[in-house]
């Protein structure tokens, strides 16, 4: 039998709801692993400019190495081992022997050493102009995930895509959250006919099928809009389509909570609506809201991917997973240039991480549900 220490007991007694939820969350290994992976991916997305060696667009393209295979750094080869990792240089030549087609050959004599914290292309990071990158090579370019048909580095594009998708997802989630909280909050708090009317509106919007709605709205975007305007518009659309589900959860929860004894106790102490909302009702569903937010994130990301993939979402020069996948439908790519799909692995990891963390949070916040205990 395990003995429970005095300090552990005291910690349990003085733990707020948030701390209790965090403690339960930490016990779930799956969710913790997912949270770490999620954290790493988000950090890499935030620091995409730094992590990626080159500009993801044409400015950083390598004309000498189009459709190039991934270059994996190694430590040893026939000529001996070295402490620093290196890759081989490539030469591109065209001659009669090759039927005047550009052929890229790997030159095993030419070692290019990988260096860290190199200076490279300039970039803007939250207003500051920097030029340090995490790694690079002393000569030429390194393409860990290969390049596409225009020579753009897929590694760089992957991380910029993660950042863009996270940004679109965040904006969409924030918009849907604000709308859901307002509408669901008013409906749940006041009840009565206000609730009835708002419920009808919510349900009406909910019944509209999402993908055709996206497509219809997105098809109306004029081509003359800049990439940034497109970006905001897509995010807003995603937010506007996503709020009804969350609003319904908020409203139901409020309808239940406002009849609780402790709310009545506050009213009988003379508390006004503002105080009750702030101190009792809002904190009561913060945990549910956070869980909902985390779980709706992947839907936003995947919706944006779907839109961009069919050409109705983001376009170059903005990079997102959907944009990255636009070029993958050719037979050429599927047969010969499989490295185009490497970003997919990252996105699968990102979405799965969100889902596992969301599930873990939900189990931690509601231990009396049917999952597990």
């Amino acid at each position, binding site marked *: *039998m*395990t003995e*429970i220490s005095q300090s*552990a*007991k005291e910690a*349990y007694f003085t733990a707020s709801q948030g701390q209790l939820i965090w*403690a*339960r969350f930490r*016990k779930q290994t799956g969710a913790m692993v997912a949270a770490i992976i999620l954290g790493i991916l988000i950090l890499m997305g935030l620091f995409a400019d730094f992590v990626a060696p080159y500009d993801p667009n044409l400015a950083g393209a390598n004309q000498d190495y189009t459709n190039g295979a991934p270059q994996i750094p190694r430590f040893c080869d026939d000529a001996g081992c070295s402490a620093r990792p290196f890759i081989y240089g490539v030469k591109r030549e065209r001659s009669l022997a090759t039927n005047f087609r550009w052929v890229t050959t790997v030159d095993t004599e030419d070692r290019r050493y990988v260096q860290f914290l190199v200076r490279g292309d300039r970039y803007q990071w939250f207003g500051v102009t920097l030029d340090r990158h995490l790694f690079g090579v002393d000569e030429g370019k390194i393409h860990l995930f290969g390049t596409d048909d225009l020579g753009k580095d897929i590694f760089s594009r992957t991380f910029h895509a993660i950042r863009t998708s996270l940004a679109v997802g965040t904006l969409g989630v924030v918009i849907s959250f604000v709308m859901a909280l307002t509408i669901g909050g008013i409906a749940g708090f006041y009840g009565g006919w206000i609730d009835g009317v708002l419920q009808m509106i919510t349900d009406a919007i909910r019944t509209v099928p999402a993908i055709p709605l996206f497509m219809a709205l997105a098809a109306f975007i004029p081509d003359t809009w800049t990439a940034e305007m497109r970006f905001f518009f897509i995010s807003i659309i995603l937010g506007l389509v996503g709020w009804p589900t969350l609003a319904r959860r908020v409203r139901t929860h409020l309808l239940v909570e406002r009849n609780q004894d402790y709310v009545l106790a506050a009213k009988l102490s003379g508390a006004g609506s503002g105080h009750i909302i702030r101190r009792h009702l809002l904190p009561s569903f913060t945990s549910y809201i956070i869980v909902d937010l985390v779980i709706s994130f992947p839907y936003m990301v995947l919706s944006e991917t779907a839109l961009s993939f069919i050409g109705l979402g983001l376009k170059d020069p903005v990079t997102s997973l959907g944009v990255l996948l636009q070029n993958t439908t050719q037979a050429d790519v599927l047969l010969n240039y499989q490295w185009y799909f490497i970003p997919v692995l990252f996105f699968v990891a990102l979405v799965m991480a969100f889902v596992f963390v969301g599930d873990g949070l939900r189990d931690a916040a509601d*231990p009396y549900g049917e999952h597990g*205990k």
Partner: protein
Amino acid sequence: MTLLDVDNLTIRFKTDEGLITAVEDVSFHIAPGEVLGLVGESGSGKSVTAKALMQLNGRNTVYDPASRITLHGDRDIDVLGLRRERDMTPIRGGEISMIFQEPMASFAPALTVGAQMVEQLRIHTDLSKKAARDLSIEMLDRVGITEPQRRIDQYVFEYSGGMRQRAMIAMALSTRPRLLIADEPTTALDVTIQRQVLDLMRDLTAEFGMSILFITHDLGVIAQIADRVAVLYLGRIMEMGPVRDVLRTPAHAYTRGLLNALPDLDNLDAPLTPIPGDIPSPLERPSGCVFHPRNPELAPGSRYERDVPPLTEVRPGHVAALFPEDAA
């Protein structure tokens, strides 16, 4: 020959905060036709004990390997040894039936009362649908529900509180169980209804020859219905014996404390004497005799703080958790 033997029952639960002991070393037996009362306050483990008899505790339950629950009959059944759900089916609702405090929670709201009673009968007996329905109407009548032919097709929300409890008793008894477990069946009822339901249960026990394990915190109810009583505190038995002996001459300080805390209606001027202190949280289980921190009769440094007292016989058939020197 006893009907049910519970030996060294120890039940723990796995929780976020560690392993919590709910029931510790509880042993008792129930004879056929006998009503055993299980009395305790919150945290006493009485509900957990009752649910263990049908393995109804949750998945985070840990039964100590030394615990044994034996149901005697044509064959002796080791209840805790049954691993598969379908082995438990003949027991749940068949050999042993259970009624609960909140009847609304035990009847499905979307099925008629009759549908549920018939379903229970069809699972446990060979009766045809018609025969099961006839028996159900007969049982509803027996428990005092008027117009049973009409009521059987109603939903449980159409019944009043007392009627629901009677319907639950009817459903529980229709399969002629040998043991009925009643978990606080009258606690949620008005006192006038409680009186009627207790009278009904007493009559039915005599008529059906079944035993009852009656769980409650109300000593008055125990006095009226039980033959023997076991007093539980924090998962251990403090005292057990015939109900007259235990209530009139309680041997353990906890039983005395419980009796003293009850308002005395013959002397309205007498002060109310609660048991000092509070029931400790499950995380802070006292050593030695679990009641010792709240026992006003104990001198500090007594043996009860360190050692667990055994169940010593105070009188024939009447035991208490005292060291032999104090049981005189």
